[in-house]
């Protein structure tokens, strides 16, 4: 279960990229709080605290302290810089315990298969989209792959999920399987000699023009 973490937020007045850059230089991350048909509030949170809440505590739902008021929010979207090093902006959606939220939860594989039979572990789904109560968001969906064998993949329908959690992916989708190496498509190799290359797509002449 994801823990609820408290985070201090301060309102911000400026908008636009220049104001956001100034905030980031001060060690803050611009954010917005919205939802529940209330007014949107532009806020700023500490980059260090937010980073810790997400990377270390794996928090999904936060208690946002804003002007002495407490708001329960869900991290709806997180924007990263192109290198994926720092967080640029966060969207907080107001939630209450009675709500049902849709979030993506990582899949964690436990143990190693007893016998691989020459197969290679293939995991098509690294995250699952789930619908649940905001207080019951699982930290991860853990799958024990000790008994995984070649030709018997683990589907969504085979998973043991926590109570109140519904997976939105189709039940027949494969989560993890053992696959024979070499089954994956080999990159296209076109033998090239000087003067040859890929086929050039040309316009087809109309039949009528040819008759004329």
């Amino acid at each position, binding site marked *: 279960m994801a823990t609820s973490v408290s985070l201090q937020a301060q309102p911000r007045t400026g908008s636009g990229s220049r104001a956001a850059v100034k905030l980031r230089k001060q060690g803050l991350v611009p954010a917005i709080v919205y939802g529940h048909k209330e007014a949107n509030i532009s806020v700023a949170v500490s980059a260090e605290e937010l980073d810790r809440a997400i990377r270390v505590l794996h928090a999904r739902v936060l208690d946002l302290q804003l002007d002495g008021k407490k708001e329960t929010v869900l991290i709806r979207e997180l924007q990263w810089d192109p*290198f*994926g090093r720092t967080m640029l902006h966060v969207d907080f959606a107001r939630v209450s315990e009675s709500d049902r939220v849709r979030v993506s939860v990582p899949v964690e594989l436990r143990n190693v298969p007893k016998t691989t039979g020459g197969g290679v572990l293939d*995991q098509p789904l690294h995250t699952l989209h789930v619908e649940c109560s905001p207080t019951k968001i699982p930290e991860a969906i853990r799958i024990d792959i000790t008994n995984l064998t070649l030709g018997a993949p683990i589907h969504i329908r085979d998973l043991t999920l926590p109570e109140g959690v519904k997976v939105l992916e189709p039940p027949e989708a494969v989560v993890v399987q053992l696959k024979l190496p070499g089954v994956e498509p080999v990159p296209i190799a076109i033998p090239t000699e000087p003067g040859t290359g890929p086929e050039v797509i040309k316009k087809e002449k109309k039949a009528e023009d040819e008759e004329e």
Partner: protein
Amino acid sequence: MPQMPKRVKFRKSQRGVARGRSTKERYNGPIRGFSHRGNYVAYGDYGLQSLEGGWLSAECIESGRITMTRFVSGEGRYYLRVFPHKPVTSIPAETRMGKGKGEPEYWAAVVRPGQILFEISGLPEPAARDCLARVAYKMPFKCRLVTRRPSV
């Protein structure tokens, strides 16, 4: 064999601005901007991220692919995240000016800083780090190892 497109609409394309890293190699300045797509690990567990921009030739991609194939054989899986879509032309040495554009010489992928070039899965971190370090040695850019972003 290096990769190339199966079918193309035009044999030659305009060059764009990217040519190389060093000032001597640059034509109109280095490639501009960052990679805003393909900049996170999507399929595997670990990825090799380019920290510089330029053209990555099909031969370079192929050499990285062979290195990974030899390393992960029978254990993990690897993914190629770049494809050489761009034909690069050149004119022969000691040719007089004019007489039109040269012939296609090789194929290249346009890489911007932040682009994930290769991904790997099914290996423990030390092995993945070792494998991607070998691949990075063959790349014409500075690269770093990246992991999956935390899911929110």
